[in-house]
């Protein structure tokens, strides 16, 4: 079939039969050594969207296999963390919480934090955990960390439903501000992917990354206003503080859901800028290192 179609194209180069159009002349792929910085090839990434979909589906359906509580873990983790935070920070340390009940204040921070932290942890390990694929088949390697980050969205949604339940319990009304929520969610994904790209590429070379990641996430948690309000910092430090994009994500979530003080524009701008710089830099670095992945991983 294909042969016939192609022959007909050959015989008459300009006039293609219907069949010839379907079996358009095959693309010519040239494989040669690359040097230095290389293009991101986002179009090719788009062509591999089905693989991305199946990798995400695999990660999600495997994640809670053979666990007794299953997907409940997606809720249990942030919920129990919230309980511990409420007891120690809220109740005992009398941590201020912008006038909100401390439990919902903490939980509203923990939900986006979990999206970020899980995405970062999964994506930084994505090349190593998919080493058998990387060594055996070609696909745009960017698919692996992207799938790892997006795989966390389902967990996020489960935890988010719990958040809605708590809002109902505490009698917090839902306002139009909730429409801004996807933007902050996207920001969290961008930061997770950006940092994940750097770490996953480094992880191929240096398995030290495995030990760095949990430590990094821990430090990052304390420098993000999850357990405490960002209002603890003086106003003039806020923009600088915003260079940690998770500050805007957490503040933005609280604002969009619970209301209260709006996150300052300059701070969110600083966060978005920082996130984009990390993402683009990470993607370029990742692509630069990509040629060695199969040899080294």
């Amino acid at each position, binding site marked *: 079939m294909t042969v016939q179609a192609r022959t007909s194209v050959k015989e008459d180069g300009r006039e293609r039969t219907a069949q010839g159009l379907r079996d358009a002349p095959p693309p010519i792929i040239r*494989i040669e050594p690359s040097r230095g910085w290389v293009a991101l090839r986002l179009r090719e990434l788009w062509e591999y969207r089905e693989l991305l979909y199946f990798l995400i589906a695999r990660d999600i359906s495997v994640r809670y296999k053979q666990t007794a509580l299953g997907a409940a873990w997606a809720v249990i983790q942030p919920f129990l963390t919230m309980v511990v935070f409420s007891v120690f920070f809220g109740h005992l340390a009398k941590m201020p919480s912008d006038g909100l009940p401390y439990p919902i204040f903490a939980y509203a921070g923990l939900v986006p934090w979990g999206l970020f932290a899980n995405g970062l942890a999964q994506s930084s390990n994505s090349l190593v955990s998919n080493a058998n694929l990387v060594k055996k088949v070609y696909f745009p390697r960017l698919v692996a960390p992207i799938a790892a980050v997006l795989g966390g969205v389902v967990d996020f949604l489960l935890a988010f439903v719990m958040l809605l339940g708590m809002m109902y319990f505490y009698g917090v009304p839902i306002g139009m501000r909730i429409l801004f929520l996807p933007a902050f969610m996207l920001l969290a994904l961008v930061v997770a992917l950006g940092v994940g790209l750097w770490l996953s590429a480094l992880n191929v070379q240096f398995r030290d990354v495995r030990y760095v990641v949990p430590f990094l996430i821990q430090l990052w948690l304390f420098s993000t206003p999850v357990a405490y309000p960002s209002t603890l910092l003086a106003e003039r430090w806020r923009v600088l503080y915003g260079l940690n994009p998770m500050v805007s994500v957490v503040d933005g979530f609280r604002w969009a859901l619970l209301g209260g003080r709006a996150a300052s524009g300059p701070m969110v701008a600083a966060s978005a800028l920082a996130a984009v710089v990390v993402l683009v830099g990470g993607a370029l670095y990742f692509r630069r290192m990509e040629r060695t992945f199969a040899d080294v991983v």
Partner: protein
Amino acid sequence: MTDVSIVAEGLAKQYRIGARRSGADLGWGYRTLRDAVSDAVSRPFRRTRRWPQGNAESGDPGTTIWALRGVSFQIGQGEIVGIIGRNGAGKSTLLKILSRITEPTKGYVELRGRVGSLLEVGTGFHPELTGRENLYLNGAILGMRRIEIQRKFDEIVAFAGIDRFIDTAVKHYSSGMYTRLAFAIAAHLEPEILLVDEVLSVGDAQFQRKCLDKMEDVSRGGRTVLFVSHNMQAVVRLCPRSILIEDGLVLKDGPTDEVVGAYLSAGLGTSAAREWRDLPSAPQGEVARLVAVRVLDDQGQVAQAVDIRRPVVFEVEYDVLRGGHPLRTHFELRNHRGVEAFSGHDLDPAWRHRPRPAGRYRTRVTVPGNLLAEGTMFLTIGLTALEPRNHQFYLRDIVAFQVMDTIDGDSARGDFGGHMGGVVRPKLSWDNAYEPGGTAQEGQAVDQ
């Protein structure tokens, strides 16, 4: 060759083993001692050869290895080409470059058409997922579109013969079912160029046959197939043309029969005698340790080539380390296509069923003259301890020798100079009965 499908020009691939490649590029070449030790153990390309010029060029002597050293070839559309060569010759590296898994260090490849590569069946299979889920995932990994998978779904499941288990997690599959599903998916790939690496070494014989048939169908469909294998029978059957890679270079490129013959008879690694002087590293089991395997002529001399008319002797020398077990030596004899001519095992009445005390043994078996066909023969040797049954060693194609036919006229060939097939060439007794005047006269019935 107007319809070229693959062009490879001067492909070379260097692996850096001292400093990790990109780390060194960035000036982060330092590594800890522990890294160096673990590297030495785990590097996959230890068996590749060095390319001295390359070392001088990189200015980093001793830390680089060239797996490919300038490979060029062209493959036409619809051709099926076998890639053969020893382990570490560079075959797999070549396939990895063609399938875009890794980049060449020098040279380039042009591929016209979508490439499907099959470097391992079941790549990306997840044990926790069901057969159905794995089918979709693996299909996507191999580059199939979802619609394409949906369309072929029933066919693939039927081909694998696992209909009833398609919604069972593959961790509950037997290894045969697992392999069948994995290969069934791969066999239904329809890229313009298909790269296959040594996948037929798995599965039972019947299923292997089915896969070979399927691959023949695929190639009849006009697809270009590159097939890397150690299974010479499969290569001979599937590929009209072969490329022999040795030491990172193309050694021979041409009709498969010639290339396979060259590969096997050039004695690329195989000679008529093997001896293990370093005893601890010799092939061994709990009871016995191999010392030597030799092919001898009827004078008792190691013989790389034997006269087709003369007997040939196979000698196995081994140490019995723990006495008390009856032992049975066995051999298998194969020709250059991997076809087994015959096999046999030790029937010496003096030692049959009799426990052997520790010590050195030399077991010989004589194959009579005028039995083997001419060509390269490969000897496989095994030793089994009995009561209880326990394999001590089994070495496939461990030694090789040439059987030379003569032109003297007193072998089965006589004075016929053409091709004679088969794995054996016994000299048979021929007899013609003749009755003078027995021929039917013209115009008369034969059976009077």
